[in-house]
């Protein structure tokens, strides 16, 4: 150990034996205060980068699952209708509307989540109401088995199977090489459970959202995009 003459362990032990509790409280509060200040300032400094990254990832995912759109708008379901809502601080579930060049609605990007083989899989899929088809699927978050289950996003042919996939009566995952109907996808060999989980998560998303999208009073989304404050 150290042989430094001025700061041997004995030196630190010769401090006053019993400090008052006021001193203890002061020391801890001071430490807490300093810690708080540092954390808040770092948080404030990094927040814009972090949120910008997350928003960019989400935007990219929306454009990925809804090919051919020009602009997107965040929509929430409130009081029985879909309304445009950019603020993310409400608890409402949100989906994204994708619009073509002339402002017409192309489709919706719907986030959905559910249990996979290991942990929750979160994904985003595009839905085209006019054709009642899924137009694409992107996994946002998953911890599926590397080398097997992670093929749900690494295996391009599996991801591609979700382009132009009919949703009626419901999507089904079938054994590799046997997908024949328009609502069937080939499950990944060795990752049947993960493949079926993806399909089930999309079906659940459909159950939750399709009725809301078809709400009468029609196209609440088409009138909304007029305000240009959507930051496209």
């Amino acid at each position: 150990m150290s042989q430094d003459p001025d700061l041997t362990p004995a030196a630190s032990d010769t401090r006053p034996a019993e400090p008052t509790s006021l001193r203890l409280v002061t020391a801890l509060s001071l430490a807490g205060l300093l810690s708080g200040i540092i954390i808040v300032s770092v948080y404030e400094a990094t927040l814009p980068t972090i949120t910008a990254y997350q928003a960019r990832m989400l935007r990219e995912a929306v454009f990925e699952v809804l090919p051919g759109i020009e602009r997107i708008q965040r929509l929430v379901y409130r009081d029985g209708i879909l309304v445009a809502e950019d603020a993310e601080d409400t608890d409402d579930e949100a989906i994204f509307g994708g619009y073509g060049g002339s402002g017409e609605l192309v489709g919706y990007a719907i986030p959905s989540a559910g249990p996979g083989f290991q942990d929750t899989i979160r994904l985003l899929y595009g839905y085209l109401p006019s054709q009642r088809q899924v137009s694409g699927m992107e996994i946002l978050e998953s911890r599926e088995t590397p080398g097997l289950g992670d093929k749900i996003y690494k295996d391009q042919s599996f991801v591609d199977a979700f382009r132009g996939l009919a949703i009626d009566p419901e999507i089904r995952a079938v054994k590799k090489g046997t997908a024949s109907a328009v609502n069937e996808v080939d499950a990944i060999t060795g990752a049947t459970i993960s493949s079926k989980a993806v399909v089930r998560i999309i079906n659940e998303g459909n159950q939750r959202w399709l009725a809301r999208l078809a709400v009468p009073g029609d196209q609440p989304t088409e009138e909304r995009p007029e305000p240009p404050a959507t930051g496209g």
Partner: protein
Amino acid sequence: MKQQDPRLLVQPAPLLKQPLTTSMAMFDVLLALAPATLAGIWFFGLGALLILLASVAGALLTEWTFLPADQRRGQIANGSALVTGLLLGLSLPPSLPLWMAFLGGVASIGLGKLIWGGLGYNLFNPALVGRAFLLAAFPVAMTTWSAQTGPADFFQLASSNLAAPLMHADYDGLSSATPLGLMKFQQESTPLWELVIGKTSGCIGETSGLLLILGGLFLAFRRDLDWRIPVSILLTVAILATLLFLIDPTRYPDPIFAVFAGSLLFGAIYMASDPVTSPITPRGAWIFGIGVGLLVVLIRYFGGFPEGVMYAILLMNAATPLIDRYSQPRVFGKGLESARSGHE
């Protein structure tokens, strides 16, 4: 552990000397496995032979490398590493790349036996540890089954066998489903006669039910294995399979299929009865066997895999010390009461 054949026995009566030693038991096992091994090579060709050689070589080499120099000769000579390598090789698919079979042999002896302290100290069956390692490491290669080549094409090697070390194997479209795979994923049964003589795809040594049973009978008569273990496993599976078959014959296979398909016979006779990793008391043997049978049925019928013998045996291996502890025979002259109070 150090002393092989003690000259002087110091033990209480009965002083009946049993001429059974490790090397003799291992020789019996080799003899019992010979018919099924030859049948496997006959059915699957030269590739199967090479796989067996590779896994045995991996096992022996690991044993040699990691044992202290003065123990090497004796340990290799008692044949236990040879048996482990052979059992592992017989439980591998015939189209597996040879380097994987070799690696499996290394894992069997290294992870399955030596790190526990050598023969007699391992908790899990070494061959199954090697197989579980391979299945977890190379799930695709370990579940790709080639069809039988038959004696006519004996020298035709599958290109996948010869994949370079660490490299991916190319399967030239010879994949074929095992009877259990057919049942699980296509609800298709296999004729009983093919299951009995072994004209199905599967692991090298597991296909021929008849020869496996013959070897098992030989071992049982030589007292090399506790007959209660295979019998209780097979009975449990048969009874549960009958119940399920009676409930819904369209969904579940008949009990004879359940017993003869897959690696149940092979696992029950040669893997589960390993004296090191199974309970020593008769009552414990029954509990162990029933546990394995129950787990096999659960995994096969309600789990994601078509076959579950390997995991069932490994799980029950883990429970063996506990079973041994609770199935100790009552000391003569002591009532249950006194035994219990003795513990407190």
